């Protein structure tokens, strides 16, 4: 069997794998968005910009400091997490009592600032990041050639996603976090430092975005605009999945990435819009999203 629905099976599986890789990024980003939204009640528009900064930190630390990919995996989340702490402490903190729309507008402004700064510094043309030595080459699976780095991206991001899910749903720390989402005043009354928890949650979400940025760096062009183009798709993913469920946003992210990949095979013209079309259909049939709760 060399063809499936008239498409060479190699091309088919190749696009499916690409979709899976994209889906992993969607999953990581929508997971971060969901965690931040859960505790802060803010839709973090700057998430795409933080992802972009993560990729640039990787590229810069290789170019300027000679630090390799594995260092970048550690450094970028730390640096962007620190930036997250700064953003939350100095700005977001003032908005919690206001309409959540202000949070969206503030983070949108921040995204523009970051994008503009990086565009001024690095221009609009893309930067290349080499695939790390250890993950070069490809493995022949018999029915397809699997590039090692892509496999690593999928495995790594799935592990990070599931790790986050475990942390939030199954540990004591996660229980406190979830309690903080439900009733911050009560949790505070139990002697837990809720403001600190909120800061760390935002920083954690930011770090996740940066980690996704480093993972993406070798498979994409690093440009200042890479984040905002992605974040709008991730918003659609979040609307489809519903922000209430962590596992839901992971599954939705992966599934939509693969649907997008398949669309590239069968009807490439629609691959840009397929996620939005699905969003519209889901909203008509089930307005709260696939995994959302009634509000």
């Amino acid at each position, binding site marked *: 069997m060399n063809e499936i629905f008239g498409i060479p099976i190699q091309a088919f599986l190749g696009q499916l794998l690409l979709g899976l890789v994209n889906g992993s990024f969607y999953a990581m980003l929508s997971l971060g968005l969901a965690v931040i939204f859960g505790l802060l009640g803010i839709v973090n528009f700057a998430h795409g910009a933080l992802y972009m900064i993560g990729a640039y930190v990787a590229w810069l630390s290789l170019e300027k400091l000679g630090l390799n990919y594995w260092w970048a995996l550690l450094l970028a989340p730390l640096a962007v997490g620190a930036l997250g702490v700064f953003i939350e402490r100095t700005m977001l903190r003032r908005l919690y009592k*206001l309409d959540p729309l202000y949070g969206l*507008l503030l983070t949108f402004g*921040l995204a523009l600032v970051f994008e503009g700064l990086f565009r001024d510094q690095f221009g609009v043309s893309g930067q290349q990041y080499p695939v790390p030595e250890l993950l070069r080459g490809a493995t022949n699976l018999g029915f397809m050639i699997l590039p090692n780095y892509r496999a690593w991206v999928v495995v790594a991001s799935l592990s990070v996603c599931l790790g986050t899910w475990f942390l939030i749903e199954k540990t004591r720390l996660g229980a406190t976090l979830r309690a903080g989402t439900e009733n911050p005043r009560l949790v505070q009354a139990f002697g837990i430092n809720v403001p600190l928890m909120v800061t760390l949650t935002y920083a954690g979400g930011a770090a996740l975005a940066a980690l996704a940025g480093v993972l993406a760096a070798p498979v994409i062009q690093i440009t200042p605009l890479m984040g905002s183009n992605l974040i709008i798709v991730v918003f659609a993913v979040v609307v489809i999945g519903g922000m209430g469920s962590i596992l839901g946003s992971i599954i939705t992210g992966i599934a939509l990435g693969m649907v997008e990949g398949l669309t590239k095979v069968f009807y490439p013209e629609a691959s*840009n819009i397929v996620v939005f079309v699905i969003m519209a259909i889901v909203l008509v049939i089930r307005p709260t999203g696939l995994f959302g709760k009634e509000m």
Partner: protein
Amino acid sequence: MTVSTGKDDPALPGVPVAKRLSVSRIGQLTWMAVLAFLLAAPFVGVYPIFLMNALCFAIFACAFNLLLGYTGLLSFGHAAFMGSGAYATGWLVRSAGWSPEMGVLAGTLAAGAIGLVVGLIAIRRQGIYFAMITLAMAQMIYFICLQAPFTGGEDGLQGVPRGVLFGVLPLADDLAMYFVVLAVFVAVFLGIVRIVHSPYGQVLKAIRENEPRAISLGYDVDRYKLLAFVLSTSLSGLAGSLKTLVLGFATLSDVHWSLSGEVVLMSLLGGMGTFAGPAVGAATIIGLQNYLADRVGSWVTVIIGATFVFCVLLFRRGIVGELLAWLRRNRAA
């Protein structure tokens, strides 16, 4: 305050209470002054293309504010409607040879029709989700404009002629075009004031203040919101149509999400929920962009973003909102 009591106003010693101007009277006087300036502007050396561009964006921002300021719905995809109007008019006037008035009318209706579809989907969710859905739908329209055969892809539609309005008024003359745009702006502005002050507008405000209560009072909230959305998107389309005639082109930047963000900023900076605010905000932002474009290059984005952050943190009432609050404080004292 029709009868003079003969007592002095405590805030303004020496001025009898009856002589004070009410806040709304000051508003009227300001508007007359602004209108007089706009009528005279092209004759005192203000570049008419710039004025027309600013007026188109003022129409856009006022239309947007009907939704955000008076209904409490944040649409983060309004560029899609301005852009649809721009593309529809551009294509009809250039390729199908329609007259400018029919082109503008069609552009307005096209944007309204697209607004109806997007609105039907988006009003199924509230608050922050509404913003995300409109943004996503607008991005879909952006990609359609990028790929559709009749939009000219990356180049957009170039060389759209202005034509002859109603078969008598040649719009190629900048002055004629300017007064047409000004007339449309005044009409839209008064129309929005009328809508907001009508019983329908009061229901919109009730929805903004407390949606569950409006529902429990028996209002079909979704229908009201949808009508507001369609009105707002049609007027945004009108702004886009006019802009295409003024500048002679429609491009992808008319449908890009950054423009959706800019119109939010115009409303916010000028003052959400005030009539004049969005127009003031539009004029400020367009003026700022014009001024900065040749001077600072890519820093424009940074400055726009920083203005956003500043407005959200420290200046939520906006220019007009702050002025009104200051006036009211003074009058109340």
